[in-house]
Each structure stands twice: as structure tokens, then as C-alpha cells.
């Protein structure tokens, strides 16, 4: 047992575009006393639906980048030989290939390589309609260290947890790599949003393997369940065999696209139809 008062729910999918953000946004509308964090720092979208009022913007420094000072460089070639990321060619460091390991910086006999911290993104703190805390980030294009940025915004956000807080709601990134692991840290329950396509199922299984490896609890929502009822049945079979909660089956419905086009959550767009389903 832990003594914290809140539960952290993280929404993931493996495959992109299955409906993570659509569902997270609806959960955000339905839950009270919450902190909401968009951890898809590559391509954050949740703010487009929740329209937070931004109250703070902070710069993110993800790591350092090497840069050669040609006035000091004697062209000995050591840095180019040592770099394992093929980032140095003809006395120039390619900032996209440089992973900021600093090997060249420390090894250079002329101290000709600088190693400045580089701004690689920004993150925002905002308030939602009901005054609850909201965080999202923008990693600059092509930057690495997305997992580190996820950890940083989560750390920042948890600073605003009070005794009142009941929910931490995290919208996760696609995939199974480093930003997913960073999003999962501290999670009490994972909501998996999948779709009944062979690709959706394939990616779901890989993600479930990851969750089992790190012993996270999870339940599954099948979005667009009527697109392929055979695969939906296969997913339901998996939940029954593994004693996993089937949290919901959502139909393939035009309201989902139309509500998005208007920048609304599905529960706002057509409350009579969708509100009950989502809170159930």
C-alpha cells in the first residue's frame, strides 16, 4: 500500500492514432480534482481539445552539443575517429547526429571543443476550465531525449499535487520506447486504447509484454470495435484468458471525427450519446 491520495492513470496504445488523446480528453472532462499531463512531447495534441489557459512557459535543456572552435583546432582528427555516432566530418559537428556524449570534448588535446547546454524544447503549465492543472510540452523538431523531457514535466507537475488531488491523468506517446517508459513511471493503472486491426493487435501485444515485464496493471478499450468484429473478438478473448479488464467497446462513429474537427471532446459534442458510456 502507498500512502498517496491519488491514482495515476496513463493512457497508451502502442500503435498511433487509435484514439488515446480522444479518450484522455473525455476522461479529463469527467474526472474532478485532477492533474492532467500530455506526455506525447513529440506531437502533443491534448491541449487542442482541452484549451488550457497557459500560465507558465519554461525552457527545456535536454543535453549538450559539441562544437569545434576552428581557431584552436589543429586538425589532428582524433575527435572524428573517436565519435561513435559519425557526427564529426571535416571538422564540423552535425548537431542532429551528435548525441552529446562529450567524448570528443574531453579527449581533444587542444581543448578546442565546446560543450554548451542546448535548448531543445519548451513546456507549458496551464489551467483547465475547472482550474485543474494541465501540462504539455513541445520538443524541438529532431531532438532526442524525449524521455527526459517527459520525466521533467511529470516532475514539475507532481509539484502541484495537493491533498485534494485524486487523479493524475497522463496521455502517453505511441510506441514502446524511452518516452513510453518515462510516461509509465509512477503509474497505478494503464488504460490501453486499441483498434481491431491486425496492426493494432500486433502493437497491443508488444505493449502488453512491456507492461507485464514491469508489472503494471492495465485494462483495454477497443475503439472502432465494429470495424472488424473478428479481431475485436480476439482482443476480448485475450482479456478473458489473462483476466484483464475490458473497459469498453466504442463503435466506429462519425461523431468522433466531427467532434475533433470542432475541437471538442466527444462527451461535449454529443453528451446524450457518449457521456454515460465513458463514465461507465
Amino acid at each position, binding site marked *: 500500500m502507498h500512502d498517496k491520495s491519488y491514482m495515476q492513470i496513463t493512457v497508451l496504445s*502502442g*500503435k*498511433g*492514432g*487509435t484514439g488515446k*488523446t480522444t479518450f484522455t480528453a473525455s476522461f479529463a472532462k469527467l474526472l474532478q480534482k485532477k492533474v492532467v499531463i500530455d506526455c506525447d*512531447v*513529440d*506531437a502533443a*495534441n491534448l491541449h*487542442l481539445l482541452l484549451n488550457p489557459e497557459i500560465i507558465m512557459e519554461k525552457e527545456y535543456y535536454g*543535453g*549538450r552539443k559539441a562544437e569545434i572552435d576552428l581557431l584552436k583546432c589543429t586538425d589532428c582528427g582524433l575527435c572524428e575517429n*573517436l565519435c*561513435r*555516432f559519425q557526427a564529426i566530418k571535416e571538422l564540423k559537428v552535425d548537431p*542532429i547526429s551528435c*548525441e*552529446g*556524449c*562529450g*567524448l570528443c570534448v*574531453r*579527449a581533444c588535446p587542444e581543448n578546442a571543443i565546446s560543450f554548451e547546454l542546448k535548448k531543445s524544447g519548451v513546456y507549458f503549465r496551464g489551467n483547465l476550465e475547472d482550474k485543474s492543472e494541465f501540462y504539455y510540452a513541445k*520538443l524541438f*523538431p*529532431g*531532438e*532526442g531525449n*524525449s*524521455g527526459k523531457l517527459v520525466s521533467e514535466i511529470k516532475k514539475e507537475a507532481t509539484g502541484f499535487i495537493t491533498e485534494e488531488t485524486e487523479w493524475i491523468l497522463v496521455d502517453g*506517446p*505511441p*510506441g*514502446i*520506447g*524511452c518516452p513510453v*517508459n518515462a510516461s509509465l513511471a509512477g503509474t497505478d493503472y494503464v488504460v490501453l486504447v486499441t*483498434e*481491431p*486491426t*491486425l*496492426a*493494432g493487435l*500486433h*502493437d497491443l501485444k*508488444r505493449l502488453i*509484454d*512491456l507492461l507485464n*515485464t514491469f508489472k503494471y496493471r492495465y485494462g483495454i478499450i477497443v475503439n472502432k470495435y465494429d*470495424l*472488424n468484429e473478428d*479481431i475485436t473478438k480476439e482482443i476480448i478473448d485475450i482479456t478473458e484468458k489473462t483476466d484483464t479488464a475490458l473497459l469498453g467497446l466504442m463503435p*466506429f462513429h462519425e461523431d468522433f*471525427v466531427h467532434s*475533433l*474537427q470542432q*475541437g471538442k471532446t466527444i462527451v461535449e459534442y454529443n453528451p446524450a450519446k457518449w457521456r454515460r458510456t465513458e463514465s461507465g
Partner: protein
Amino acid sequence: MIISVASGKGGTGKTTVATCLAAAIENAVYMDCDVEEPNGHILLHPEFYSKTPSQKMLPKIDYVKCTFCGKCVEVCEYNALINLKTEIMLFDGMCHGCGACTYFCPEKAITEVAKTIGYVREGASRINNIQFYDGVLNIGEEMAAPLIKSVKAKIDIDKTTIIDSPPGTSCSMVESVKDSDFCILVTESTPFGLHDLQLAIEVLKIIDMPYGVVINKYDKSFVEMEDYFDRNGIEVLLKIPFDRKIAESYSKGILPIINFPEFKNEFVLLYNRIKEKLEMENVDA
């Protein structure tokens, strides 16, 4: 020629576009660089004939030589090593395999051992004889970029290669699309699609790569997107209207151009348009 297919937002139809395009070109090579969640094989049904491990190097401490001086910990920018005075502890997932610890250890107590992070698979699809490659990252591995490099090492520049990129705009997307001749960005007619497309375009501008847009699940009533293209003079190469039949075909792992041959022609035209664009650019340059 190398054409990469990327999107920013996930689930817009990258894999559908990349596989259909590969199937519409003679003697194409398809390469799935979405190593966290590779799906191209589901649509192309390749017969695999090889599977090669992709490895990264991790430090191994020789405790007979180690004096626990802490130099390795000091030079590790990724905080992957901790000095416990009786042991140097390594966090595998954080190690980039840069070799700094090995290089600076004053006692020469560090050697490196290879760790398999995933596999590069090679095969052939019966569909138009596509040569097939993909990368499959092992569950629990965090870093996709080294595996993407291993997949791309198989590129034969004499062949037309279609690269299927992971979603997003960070290092693994850049690793996948860089060195391509052209990038197709696949979007959808929603605010999410438009927002993430703009981010992806920023990346391509930074790496100075020519690109064009394919709109999947196209809905002309989403005027914000039309306005954006008009204002910025962005060329739309292909519009694929929303069609439940295509979605159902995809769900079963059937390449849409097999059930809907009229669709194939669209991709032949797409390829020709890209070729023309590149030829014109070469003339200009």
C-alpha cells in the same frame, strides 16, 4: 532513389501509403524503420529469409583492475553508471554506447560487450516482388535510433527504396528520413493531423529535405487544413477520401490496392509526380 514516408501524428496511414507505393513501383525495396511497432509485414506478408541481431556496446568492468576512482561515472553524460565503491553499477537502458568510460578509464579496466537490442529482418513479398526489410526492437529496449541505423545500412542506392518512418518528430523520425531524396508526409483531415503535420514540416525544413503531402481520410469540409495549404503553397500530392472499405481491408492485413485496383493507379501517379519533381529540382540545381 529513397522516398521516406513520415507523419508527425501516428495512425494517419503512413504504412498504408508506404506499402501501396512500394507495390506500385517495379522492383521496389520496402524498409520499415518504425522499429518500436513495425506493421509493414502485416500488409506485405513477406517470406523472411534472414534475421540479424542489431547490437549496442555496453561497458564491462574488470574488477581485478578497477580501483573505483569514479572517472567512468564522471565522464558519463547519460548518468548510466553509479559508483557503489564495491561495484560500478550500469543502467543498460541509459547507456548510449559512446565509449567515453572505456576511453578515459586510467586503469584500462573497461572492455565492451555487445548486447542485442533488436533484429533486422530481410525477406521478399509476393506482392510485386517487393524486397522487404524491417527492424524489430526488443521489448524493454528504449533506444530505437541504433536499430534504425542497422536497418538503413541495408540500403542499396541503385534501387528505389521506400522508408516507413516512426511517428513523431524526434530523433528516431529524423534518423529514419534523413538521407532520403524526398519525404511524403501523410496527414488526416483533423486538427491533430494538421497540428502534427506542421511540426513534421518544421523538421524537414531544418534538414532541408523536399517533401509533399498526402491527405488520408480526406474531408474537404475541414477548411483550416485547406487554408493552411493555400497560405503556405504546400503541394498536396494525393487525397485519399475516407472509405470504410479501405479501413476494413487494412484491418484484415490486406493491402488496399489488391482489393481496389483503381487505387493502384493513384500510387503509380504519386510515384511519377515525385520523380518529376525531383528531376525538375535537379535541373534547377
